[in-house]
């Protein structure tokens, strides 16, 4: 007898929408009946796992790599993760780990099919140790959730990526430098231990093990991080941001240099180019920030606050108003806001050594000018000699050819900066060309760890060490030091004659594709930063675990609809499972008007597929009674919602 392969454990925190029949590998995994493992069988839902934050032009993607996963799974326990990995090892299948999908480098998308493992539901904060100031979390926890849990105990995280809705494991694997890294140092300094699921079981890693070091920046080559113990610190009311404005770049960098050498280190120090302030003004619809090169320095405690103030008074620099500083400080977490203006943005991210920072910044400015780009440069100063340079510019994602040109420019800028001493920040797929510039020692360490932990090479294969995709490794050729790396290097050298060509081409395409009268949904999906913040706050997602119910999923469905792709009725009906709680609108860094977009999408879908009123009603009633939903409402679905009771705690 054929068992119902879609039965779910009945829990009051779960809503099972219409069944989608699994087939192929999905069906095979479903039949394993691994507890606490959700197998995604709907094609529409699987499609969401074919991309990450970046919108890689489909021409590039389609020809080069097999980015469609054969199956997608969501474990919610470490045991389920291990079970899945064991199965994959036995079957010789690739496993591609994925957090919240908020990195733009392609680290979490398959290049040759395989199983995508969505770790985003390993999202429990397990234990807060107030005495020893540390917290044990599951790997899929979002940084914002960890911070929220800590705040109840008067604690906070030391550093986090610029997207607070990225997962802990994702940032461990993908970089470890971000907001707070000046005072706190690289993430590896703030992690006490890691529990990792591998094909042969759970292992615990901690310093000084070599494998522990290798995990950072490993891009999921070693295993799935299911747990991590983080160091945290107390909330300090003396911590304050300061906003300094300079006439020229060199002046700003000089002061930054002095600030990062203070004996009491500031928590965080960022340089913003004039472009950043211009865009910030535009987004805020007002002249809040003046013209110039800016530094935003945030003290971590009274000692560093005093040190900063001392430096300012001794150098005679006057700081700008506090509200401006606080606005910018908040803005650190929302770098993708800019996409709204494009719609879409492109950029290069490199690690720049401090001594060469001035040169690199000047170079980036010059290059962008040649390419007729209005860039926004951001430098996050780190402990030691490194700093993280982000160079962003607007593009128009609705205009395919322009977008492709802008993407090429991004690669050229990255390679040109690497030429003069910068290093790639993350490899993923698209930065593989720069793998030669990756520190050799790190590379060897990772290789040794991989041989030990993942001898069969099933974890995130085809990247990092050798990029292999379709067409006999054409991608490997292209995105390799020998292929595009050389070509790009060459182009970077030849940018002088090249830039007028690129400039004219951009102008022509801009004229060919008018920006008026575009479809509202298409426009919006391109403005969307795909950061996944909406996923982490969505109560409908918490109940269904299906990303199609979230803003990101719905916008992508809107695009599929506009592009005339096949959508199944089941997929279409998922879009209606919404609480209309507006949490997504509140966290959206692009500040999109999502609710009207949902109404529009729903009316389009309803015309094609009808709507299942009974399912919607049932969903709402289940959600209302679910403890998980109550908890989310209590926490405040909407950031900054007033607390209930006069200054007291929120009551539920």
């Amino acid at each position: 007898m054929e068992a119902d392969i879609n039965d779910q454990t009945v829990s009051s925190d779960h809503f099972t929408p219409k069944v989608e029949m699994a087939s192929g590998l999905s069906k095979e995994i479903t039949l394993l009946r691994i507890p606490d493992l959700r197998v995604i069988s709907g094609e529409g839902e699987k499609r969401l796992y074919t991309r990450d934050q970046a919108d890689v032009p489909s021409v590039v993607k389609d020809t080069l790599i097999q980015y469609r996963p054969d199956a997608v799974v969501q474990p919610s326990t470490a045991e389920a993760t291990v079970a899945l990995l064991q199965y994959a090892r036995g079957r010789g299948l690739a496993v591609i780990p994925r957090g919240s999908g908020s990195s733009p480098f392609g680290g979490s998308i398959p290049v040759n099919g395989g199983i995508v493992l969505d770790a985003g539901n390993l999202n429990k904060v397990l234990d807060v140790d107030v005495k020893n100031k540390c917290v044990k979390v599951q790997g899929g926890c979002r940084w914002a959730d960890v911070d929220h849990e800590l705040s109840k105990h008067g604690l906070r995280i030391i550093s986090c990526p610029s997207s607070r809705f990225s997962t802990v494991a994702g940032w461990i694997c993908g970089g470890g430098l971000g907001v707070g890294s000046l005072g706190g140092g690289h993430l590896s300094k703030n992690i006490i231990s890691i529990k990792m699921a591998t094909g042969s079981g759970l292992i615990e890693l901690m310093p000084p093990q070599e494998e522990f070091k290798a995990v950072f920046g490993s891009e999921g080559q070693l295993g799935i991080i299911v747990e991590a113990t983080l160091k945290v610190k107390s909330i300090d009311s003396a911590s304050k941001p300061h906003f300094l404005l300079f006439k020229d770049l060199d002046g700003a960098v000089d002061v930054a240099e002095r600030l990062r050498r203070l004996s009491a280190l500031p928590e965080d120090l960022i340089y913003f180019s004039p472009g950043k302030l211009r865009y910030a003004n535009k987004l805020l619809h007002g002249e809040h920030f003046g013209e110039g090169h800016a530094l935003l320095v945030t003290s971590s405690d009274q000692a560093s606050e005093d040190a900063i103030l001392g430096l300012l008074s001794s150098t005679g620099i006057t700081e700008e108003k506090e509200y401006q500083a606080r606005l910018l400080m908040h803005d650190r977490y929302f770098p993708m806001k800019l996409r709204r203006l494009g719609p879409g943005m492109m950029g290069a991210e490199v690690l720049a050594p401090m001594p060469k920072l001035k040169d690199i910044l000047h170079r980036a400015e010059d290059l962008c000018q040649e390419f007729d780009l209005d860039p926004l440069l951001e430098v996050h100063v780190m402990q030691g000699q490194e700093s993280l340079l982000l160079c962003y510019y607007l593009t128009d994602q609705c205009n395919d050819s322009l977008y492709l040109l802008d993407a090429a420019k991004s690669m050229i800028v990255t390679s040109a900066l690497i030429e003069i001493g910068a290093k790639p920040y993350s490899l993923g797929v698209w930065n593989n060309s720069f793998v030669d510039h990756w520190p050799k020692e790190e590379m060897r360490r990772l290789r040794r760890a991989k041989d030990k932990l993942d001898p069969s090479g099933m974890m995130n294969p085809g990247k990092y060490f050798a990029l292999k995709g379709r067409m006999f490794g054409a991608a490997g050729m292209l995105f390799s030091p020998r292929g595009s790396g050389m070509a790009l290097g060459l182009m970077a050298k030849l940018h002088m004659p090249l830039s007028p060509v690129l400039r004219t081409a951009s102008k022509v395409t801009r004229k060919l594709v008018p920006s008026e009268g575009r479809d509202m949904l298409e426009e919006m999906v391109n403005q969307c930063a795909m950061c996944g913040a909406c996923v982490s706050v969505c109560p409908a997602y918490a109940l269904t675990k299906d990303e199609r119910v979230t803003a990101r999923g719905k916008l992508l469905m809107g695009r599929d609809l506009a592009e005339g792709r096949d959508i199944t009725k089941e997929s279409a009906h998922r879009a209606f499972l919404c609480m209309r709680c507006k949490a997504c609108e509140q966290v959206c860094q692009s500040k999109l008007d999502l609710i009207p977009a949902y109404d529009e999408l729903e009316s389009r879908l309803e015309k094609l597929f009808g709507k299942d009123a009974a399912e919607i009603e049932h969903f709402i009633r289940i959600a209302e009674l679910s403890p998980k939903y109550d908890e989310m409402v209590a926490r405040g679905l909407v950031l900054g919602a007033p607390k209930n009771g006069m200054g007291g705690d929120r009551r539920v």
Partner: protein
Amino acid sequence: MYERYHIGTVVTVGRHRPVPKFIVRREGNCINCGKCERMCVYQAHRRDPVDPRKMAEPDSTLCKNCFRCVVECPQRALSIRVNDDFKALGNGVWTPVRITTMWGEAENAKIPVLGAGYRGLFSGPGFDAMWTDMSEIVRPTRDGIHGREFISTGVDIGRKPSLLRFDDDMRLLTEMGTIIDLPVPFMLDLSRLVVSENIMKGIAGAAKELGTLLVLPVGSIEKVSALMADDMLVPVLSKVDDLERVPKGVRLVEIEGGPDWKRDVNELKRSRPGMLVGVRMTSSPDLLTVANDMAREADVLHVLFAETGMGADGQYARDASRKLHRQLVAAGLRDQMTIVSSGGLAAAEMVPKSIICGADAVTLEGALKVALGCHACVECKDCPADVENAPEEFVRQRVINMCSAWRDQMLEMLGAMGIRDLRRLRGETGRAIFQEDAHRDAFSGIEGGEKVE
């Protein structure tokens, strides 16, 4: 066979949206979490029936101001405030609360329950400056007033002899006049209302159902004669000659009291022996000077107050009736004449209060219009409730409902007072506390305790 008095009520929803006392507002930061729907016991908060993912606009008319939703809302998106339109309802003793209460009574015929605390004054003008004593309420029965022993709300209209005389063979010598007994102490009164024919008919239908008298101008008899027996009509004559237009079966007529009231009364009595004759007089100090005389001649004295509850001299019915009653009692004439009081009766409790102050019965006027949805505006124009076009059946049922609710409230009061017969309440001022007495009792012995106006 004994037939218990029963009023047939049917829930009759108003023709216009009632004016809610409180406006519940949902702000834009609502997250449609549905908590308010689960919290509200009055169902003022509901999910949108078309799209259950969104909350519908709150139905303020169901709100009882309990504030539960406001307290429980995790977003603090809800607020409740008193409705300005509500505050603007009515005038004088026709307060907003009374008007909406009457609407409710006319809709569902139930005894109104007002809650969420009382923050107002404990006394006011007219009947508000007296409180009925309901000391027996300490042990209410489980099944309410209807489970107790029979309580009569009936009253008698007509002359009641103070003693009976018999001859030696024990045959009754005293000539018994006509007595009209009514199951309720109120008549329905069209004599001072300007209303459409439909409304007249509806009110007549209600009077029939209630088994009470309908007071109406003699010119309006034809409009309702098909609906009611003649003996339940009380035509109001402006002159003696109008008697020609009065059908034979009528048991009581009223005539406007002018300087020649005595002659008119005698003429009417001569023309129709056995018929009761009432005199209509506006309440004023002059009335007291003729009252004793009138008690000897007329059967009924219909004392008219304005809808403000005051007589021509600005005195409230509470005081004017007590004076009149006491004067007649002192003269030994009280039972010679039935006193009917009218005007300013804006709440159920004002009926027993009128009776405590000395009236035998009352007539309902303005309250009948309010039962139809009237806002009791100062000036009657651009009717917000379109009262004029109310259909006959609607009028009938709404009036019946309100009267039923008023009678039930009377039963509650009588039960709580331990009185089994409404007739015993007449002039029973011991069953009430009057504000000035309470003040005197509380403050008179205190140095400097004089009441400061």
